[in-house]
């Protein structure tokens, strides 16, 4: 492969990565929306944001669903960050809902 062809090939693959990233971002936001919905319910019912058992299930689930080339532990590490952020949006959603219910009273 000559250098010009190689550069063209790299550009093409990078372009494909950008498309994949767009999909990941869309899906992460979809996931966050669900997390927020749960946060709102937790806020109204006064349930704890932190659900260690559920977090364990999520990590176990993604590890099992992972077919490679990323291995289980790396998928687990990536999802730890996703869960960190989910917890944060849930906390915010729950707090907003708590306030709203207080105001309605």
């Amino acid at each position, binding site marked *: 492969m000559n250098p010009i062809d190689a550069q063209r090939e790299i550009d093409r693959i990078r372009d494909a990565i950008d498309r994949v990233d767009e999909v990941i971002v869309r899906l992460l936001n979809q996931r966050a929306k669900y997390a927020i919905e749960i946060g709102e319910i937790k806020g109204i019912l006064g349930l704890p*944001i932190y659900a*260690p058992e559920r977090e364990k299930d999520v990590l176990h689930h993604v590890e099992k669903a992972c077919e490679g080339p990323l291995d289980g532990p790396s998928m687990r590490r990536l999802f730890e960050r996703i869960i960190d952020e989910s*917890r944060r949006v849930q*906390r915010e959603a729950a707090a907003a809902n708590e306030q709203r219910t207080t105001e309605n009273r």
Partner: protein
Amino acid sequence: MVIVMEKHAAETNIERVMAELITRGFDVHRSTGSDQTVLGVVGNVETIDPREFELFDGVQEVVRISEPYKLSSRTFRREKTIVKVRGVEIGGTDVVVMAGPCTIESETQVFETARRVGRAGARVLRGGAYKPRTSPYAFQGMGIEGLKLLRAAADENRMATVSEVMEISQIEGMLPYVDILQVGARNMQNFNLLTALGQTRRPVLLKRGMSATIQEWLLAAEYIMTGGNYDVILCERGIRTFETYTRNTLDISAIPVIEKLSHLPIIADPSHAVGRRDKVMPLARAIVAAGADGVLIEVHHDPDKAVCDGPQSLYPDQFARLMDELRIIVPAVGRRL
């Protein structure tokens, strides 16, 4: 803040720490390593006492990332603070030498000493009117009458004045005569006094307590600065160590450390640190070479007859010689004198 869990800490222990943090409204970034888990804590972590979490089972260490001092830190303000007083800039290119007697004793003493140190190049005249003496039977100072002499002697030699304030009630009366209010080592953690000085708009020279860490010292400066008075000059004056040969051990390393951590001017006082005249000159040279913004030196026109701290006061001729030596050193560290 970062919480480092012990190696192979039980999952229940990790969960207990996380639950506590999240309940208190913090966000947690969990990072599970192959055998050790680290929790990053995000939020208003100043409200957390790290010891609380160190007591949890499975916690190895709690590390604060941000410094507890804010206004005095370099992170808050990148460029150096220059304290301006009567045309003298402390913290700028010039190394400012402050000199004078430990205690104001008489008109002759103050005027004679001022003339000699002023001629040699000192820009600020020091002199105590209220003396914190170890013994209540020792001379306690001349008070306002002494400050009037200090002011007159400084004016005659076109110098600024620095003098120690001992308590809140003295501040008001000192303002007409004193350009820089000094807080002594013994008062470094007199938080009521510091808060009151924060309400003035007069530069404060804050000496390091003899057993104070650099962090405690900067937090003391913080008390003054939170009142809106940002003109704080830090002064290293020796700390207590196991060495008894000199009165205190001058912590030269505090100079570059403060320079890095804080934007406040840093000067040092070799006279109180060693308490012996023959050691003052080499230390003064080291202070300037280490990059200090100034030196505070005790000079007495007749040290052998001094009421207070005579053995650590330089003779005027010695002081003039020291100034000549400092003039050779300053260009090497990119400063002027």
